[in-house]
């Protein structure tokens, strides 16, 4: 069995991905001002993507997610982890991000997270994504031929690590919405590797 712990992103969010119908003009995922429909992203609540539960933080003023610019995410004390999952999306197509995980015991795990492109053609329903029903445009309208999506990108490792810090690399085109640590559930002898994917 695998247990999951959400990692807070307090104070790190620096960008806006979602807009309400009344403020579509404030969107800014890309140069064209497109955005997610906020009513389809449960900010302040849980969202399961790719079989992994995430908790989307409440919207922090103007900001609802992290544009990755080298931020350090401090990880609250938790049982040793076996992996980390990012809820993310790539601007301008698929994007990669170097991520360094540091453990309380001096461990250093260099990881590479991959965020698939955020726009999915109508009719596609990938299993490892949360796909919204329509895309917001800054002209005050919405269309559905291309739909915005959040993707699950999971990395796993062999030996449990008491994770202390997650250092994000720099890629302004990589957008991070939520983070979940993966642990062996109390009493579990071994993590069921096949049960989780990115």
């Amino acid at each position, binding site marked *: 069995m695998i247990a999951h712990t959400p990692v807070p992103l307090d104070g790190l969010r620096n960008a806006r991905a979602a807009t309400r119908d009344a403020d579509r003009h404030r969107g800014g995922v890309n140069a064209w001002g497109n955005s997610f429909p906020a009513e389809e992203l449960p900010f302040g609540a849980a969202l399961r993507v790719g079989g992994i539960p995430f908790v989307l933080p409440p919207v922090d003023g103007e900001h609802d997610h992290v544009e990755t610019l080298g931020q350090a995410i401090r990880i609250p004390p938790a049982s040793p982890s076996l992996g980390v999952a990012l809820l993310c999306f790539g601007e*301008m197509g698929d994007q990669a991000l170097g991520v360094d995980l540091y453990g309380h015991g001096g461990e250093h795990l260099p990881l590479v997270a991959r965020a698939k492109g955020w726009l999915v*053609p109508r009719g596609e329903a990938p299993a490892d994504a949360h796909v919204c029903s329509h895309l917001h445009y800054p002209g005050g309208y919405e269309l559905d031929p291309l739909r915005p999506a959040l993707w699950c990108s999971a990395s796993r490792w062999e030996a449990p690590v008491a994770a202390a810090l997650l250092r994000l690399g720099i890629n*302004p*085109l990589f957008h991070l919405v939520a983070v979940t640590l993966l642990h062996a559930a109390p009493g579990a002898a071994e993590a069921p590797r096949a049960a989780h994917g990115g």
Partner: protein
Amino acid sequence: MPRTAGSLLANLEVLARGAAGPAGAALLGARWSFALPRPALRESLTEFSPPGGPAPFFAALEARTGVRVTEGRGGALHGHLASGGAVVVAVDVFHLPYRPAFGRVHSSRTVRVRPGPAPGQVWVDDDWPPVRSGPLDAAVLDRARASPVPRDEVREPLFAGTPVAGEWWAVEVDGEVCAALPARVDALLDELRREAVEGGEDDAGRYGLAAFAAFRAEVDSALTTGPGRTFLRTASLLLRAELGSRVYLCALLAAAARWTGCAALAREAAAYHRTLREMEVARDVLAKSLAGFRPEYAPFVSGCLARAGAAEQRLAETLARRARAGTP
């Protein structure tokens, strides 16, 4: 459509493959330089601008590989279609009813057009997501081919601001020149290397790897001091054009490796292709900056372009060694 190529070269590739088979992509790759136009000349860059140079891009390709890209304007397009030909056409998608931008956003790029299934119709293949192939009234296409494409800083900050005026392109392949290419590909690669390394300068701009170094310096300076919108837009479009030609340079390098049985060249071509990602990310962050520039972008873009520059130098050295060794 390769993400790294603009719509003109990507569409020409489809036509070139139709005329020459899988080698069609390589035929578009016989150019390696970096064209840095004078600032006043950058204003008219579009999504589909071919890369510049002291010699016209398409003329250089024809002389080197036998792929003949003819550029037309206006109504002659329909005569070409009537003869059964396929073409690439510049459009303003504001006028295309099947596009999300229809009636809302002016944005220029290219689509492929073939004869239609009924009189008064053409068949349009549009590879821009969401991809669509289907019939279209010829009159609708003609409206889309003549548009001022007015600049719209909010809805289309990148691909608007330069009119489309009936431009279209057709592709033919000179079978003899094309068939002789494998036997003379080493000489061609050395010619391309010299083009890149020796560069040059004229009234229109600077060329070659030195011009790329100058472009990098311009970007570093602008991003450090706070870039203007025109700079961001034109720098991104300039990289778009250069990336497009490099995608096909990679196809030529890979074909040369096959033709000459040179595994080392194949490895170098693959490595160079991977590093195009650096130029691509720099291009996209420059475009992203149109919606809001952050100071943190400056060192990131600078690093991407520095790594891209190192890859250019490495390829130049590889081709120089190859020429000195008389490979094969």
